[in-house]
């Protein structure tokens, strides 16, 4: 307990603290600045090209005549079909895991597997889609092949989000339902599912917004970039906004870069609307229980 060895050094310690806090603030500022620069870059390049023509024209070799109508329609098709496939399967899997699955090795494998799938690079899903949907099921380079691929891609996210939402349903609700003689499915259908639905929808919308930004898997399954017509059926070839953006960005001419920036603005607005919808749902229904 010799007090000579102990030097409080308070000033230096406090200075270290101030420096560290500044470093942390700089880090945060770096992220936010990056976001701001990215948005600034896109808006500066693309704002001049935003027009009704951009939305109503098909792609063209001439920048001044080029538009993203087929890409927007393709993205909407893709969203609808992907949601239609992944939502029921994802919610079904989540209900199974939360309400039915016995605690055994198979359930553990299922759960680990879902966590691992969420970490598989999206381009690997593209390879899977190419081999299974495009070739093996002979769906060709069609909207449905793309939608099935993206559905598999976002399935783990939907399952995990839905599981969280179902977990958050109070157990008393289950017991009350069982107590009045309801079967398991009646309990789920009429009491658990409706309460968990806002959470499930939020997760689904967020994962869908990931899906419509995906490029790599759709390039793999061969979404064409020069499509001068909208898809009329799920078996038609298609293009989507991110692929059109990729295509224009990869061209050397500055005009096409600016078109790409304009298309990015449209894509970001679409994503913003979807995220706003998710947040709205979360806030609107969160407080019910």
């Amino acid at each position, binding site marked *: 307990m010799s007090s000579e060895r102990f030097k409080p050094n308070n000033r230096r*310690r406090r200075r270290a603290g101030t420096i560290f806090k500044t470093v942390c603030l700089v880090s945060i500022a770096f992220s936010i600045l990056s976001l701001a620069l990215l948005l600034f870059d896109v808006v500066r390049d693309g704002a001049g090209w935003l027009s009704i023509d951009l939305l109503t024209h098909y792609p063209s070799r001439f920048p001044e005549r080029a538009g993203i109508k087929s890409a927007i329609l393709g993205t909407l098709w893709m969203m609808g079909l992907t949601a239609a496939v992944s939502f029921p399967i994802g919610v079904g899997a989540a209900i199974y895991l939360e309400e039915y699955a016995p605690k055994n090795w198979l359930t553990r494998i299922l759960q680990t597997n879902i966590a691992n799938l969420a970490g598989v690079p999206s381009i690997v899903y593209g390879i899977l889609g190419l081999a299974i949907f495009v070739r093996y099921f002979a769906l060709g380079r069609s909207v449905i092949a793309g939608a099935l691929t993206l559905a598999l891609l976002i399935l783990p996210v939907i399952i995990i989000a839905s599981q969280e939402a179902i977990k958050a349903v109070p157990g008393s609700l289950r017991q009350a339902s069982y107590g009045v003689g309801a*079967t398991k499915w009646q309990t789920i259908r009429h009491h658990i599912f409706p309460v968990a639905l806002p959470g499930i929808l939020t997760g689904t919308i967020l994962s869908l917004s990931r899906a419509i930004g995906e490029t790599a898997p759709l390039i793999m399954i061969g979404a064409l970039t020069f499509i001068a017509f909208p898809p009329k059926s799920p078996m038609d070839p298609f293009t989507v906004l991110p692929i059109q953006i990729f295509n224009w960005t990869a061209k050397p001419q500055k005009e096409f870069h600016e078109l790409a920036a304009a298309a990015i603005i449209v894509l970001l607005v679409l994503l913003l609307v979807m995220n706003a919808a998710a947040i709205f749902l979360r806030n609107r229904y969160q407080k019910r229980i």
Partner: protein
Amino acid sequence: MDQSPKPAESGLIPDSSGQEFDFGHRAGRRWGERVIAGMLFLCGLVSILTTVGIVAVLVTESIGFFREVPILEFLTGTRWSPLFADQHFGILPLLNGTLLIAFGAMLIALPVGLTSAIYLSEYASLNVRGVIKPLLEILAGIPTVVYGYFALTFVTPIIRTVFPGTGIFNAASGAIVVGIMIIPMVASLSEDALNAVPQALREAAYGLGATKFEVSTKVVVPAALSGVVASFILAISRAIGETMAVTLAAGATPKMTLSFLESIQTMTAYIVQISLGETPHGTLEYSTIFAVGLVLFLITLGMNFLSQKVTRRFREVYE
């Protein structure tokens, strides 16, 4: 759950007179319950089928490739030129490019992500958190192709001004945007780990006279280390699998280099190049994408397992 009422699977409940009360559809109801349980199980099975499908496709398609190219040559060769007349199938240049990008991205994302997480969890007030968290979520939600555009039209010109003579395509630009892209992932996963450290630990350290800086770096971060390391591993895995930004910005020149100012090619960018090109299906050149895809899949899978293992094995359990 054991004390809770059981679901009425039989649909039969004895009423007060001792007779069984029939709800009317007992047989149908029991049968329906089974069908529904079975269908839900099938939904769960889809995820297993996905994994089986990925492995089956990558392995079966790679077998044909490895019949012609010895695995040893594939794994140790230092030249990758499947599309040239002088064909070489050594994956090391692609691996080199991928790891170069991942390393550069790490240099940005790990320190920035961790210090951001520390700030959010230890320093920031609720109001500040409420502003910064959504901004980070926006950063995380921006499609990767947009990062590619940003790299090519904003980051690359800056790099070329600072280092004249750098080509349009260079590893630095790709690495920087991939780094920015994975900051939110490191920050949010690390912050979760830091938040999980019990308040009592912090209070004990403050009680001994530690400053906030000391509490954060000597108590909270070490206590949450497993979660922080797991977030690092996941982020690196994500950087390795990143495709669009590196395809657009880092170039298509597979080569063995440690220079960030040269054009390189990653495994993912190579796969995109082939699928955009004219290479006919069924040829040896085409089957390279499955072999490269297999390597990519195994690396990312290994890292995911590693991060789970780190979380489980080294987690400090409180209470």
